[in-house]
């Protein structure tokens, strides 16, 4: 028990690595501020292609989205980060992470938006168009607000997944929270920094997890 506490809850070490981890935490936060909007916008574009009326637009879109949902995000990230340099394209860690996340998270958000758009009846499109709204207006003012409301739990829960996923950026030496913690662990030979990182992830994500549970229950009770 004594050894256990020493190894995982060593407050002295936690105190020493706190500034380093706090910097890593800040980096994780701004990484989220980059990759979440990228994913939300890319996903919306993907959803419009996925729900297109023309078959030769819809089918290739489904193929591309399924392709990127089949490849683990870490594989995608390694491919972008260490594969592309062989072709003469050298991306910095943040560029590689942004590109990898664009391809992966857009596919997931895209599927969620698609489900939302399909949950809004075709009649709504027809009604909106017949009142004189254009296609873009119908989408923006009539369909999307309802679609987003219908799939809000899925959107939030996918966002949690994206935040958790930023931890894989540590594999390409991007100095976010987990990378900082791992660095501190290899210097101190003690796992307390990683425990501290885990606590920071929990502080950030636990409220969101609770929120998702509440949202899911509310949608289910409708």
């Amino acid at each position: 028990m004594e050894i256990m506490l020493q190894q995982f809850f060593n407050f002295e070490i936690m105190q020493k690595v706190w500034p380093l981890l706090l910097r890593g935490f800040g980096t994780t936060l701004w990484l989220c501020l980059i990759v979440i909007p990228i994913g939300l916008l890319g996903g919306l574009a993907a959803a419009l292609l996925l729900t297109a009326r023309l078959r030769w637009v819809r089918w290739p879109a489904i193929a591309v989205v399924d392709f990127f949902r089949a490849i683990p995000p870490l594989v995608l990230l390694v491919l972008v980060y260490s594969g592309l340099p062989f072709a003469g394209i050298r991306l910095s860690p943040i560029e590689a992470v942004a590109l990898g996340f664009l391809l992966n998270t857009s596919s997931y958000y895209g599927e969620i938006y698609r489900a939302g758009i399909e949950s809004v009846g075709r009649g709504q499109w027809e009604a909106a168009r017949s009142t004189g709204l254009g296609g873009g207006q119908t989408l923006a003012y009539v369909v999307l607000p309802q679609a987003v409301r219908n799939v809000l739990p899925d959107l939030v829960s996918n966002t949690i997944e994206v935040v958790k996923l930023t931890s894989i950026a540590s594999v390409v030496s991007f100095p976010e929270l987990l990378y900082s913690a791992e660095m501190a662990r290899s210097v101190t030979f003690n796992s307390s920094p990683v425990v501290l990182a885990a606590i920071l992830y929990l502080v950030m994500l636990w409220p969101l997890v609770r929120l998702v549970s509440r949202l899911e229950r509310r949608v289910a009770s409708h």
Partner: protein
Amino acid sequence: MTTWERFLDTFFKPDMMAKYWPDILKGMAVTLEIAAAVVVTGLALGLALACLRAWQWRPLNFLIVIFVDLFRALPPLVAILLIYFGLPNVGLNLPSFTVLWLVLSLVLAAFAEEIFWAGITSTPKGQWEAARSTGLSFAQTLFWVVLPQAIRIGVPPLTNRTIAITKNTALGTVIGVPEILNQATTAQSFSGNATPLMMGAIAYVILFVPIVVLGRWIETRFAWRRA
């Protein structure tokens, strides 16, 4: 060399493919093994927890909710590194394969518990009362009346979640589990060519595209209401 030829030479070099495909194939076997083990233990544990929660015994429910929230909020890579590098220092040496299986099973169990539990609570109270009044015990009602419906409701979200979590087997490369990504990056560093990485990606596509497509089909097949 034209750009196209250089692209092919970088990512699809035939002699590299010939040389490394046995390694990638070995990686595929390891990935499949872990994925299958995770699906079985994760879903079983998740279902067991949901059933325990149906007993409504407060202290136990509290613990289950803590466990579920913890593994829904914690990035799996953090848990993997914590267990793999932390436990040896307190005298417990787990092989990397076991650590990966354990962490992913716990994560899947957490998500599966939530999904099964949502299914159980969505069964109308009247069904419980009707079943109990015909003489079925609590356990019989749970297993023969409530669970069949709960599982059916849970299938679409469960499929997607299971696919996403089994893909996390790639995280095992960080602790040296010889799965696809690990084989691919090792081969790539020996060969100085990106072809093995591309082969690794293709291996995942071969394994997972059928599952993703199946998931899409299940989702439309089982959906009777769109949330």
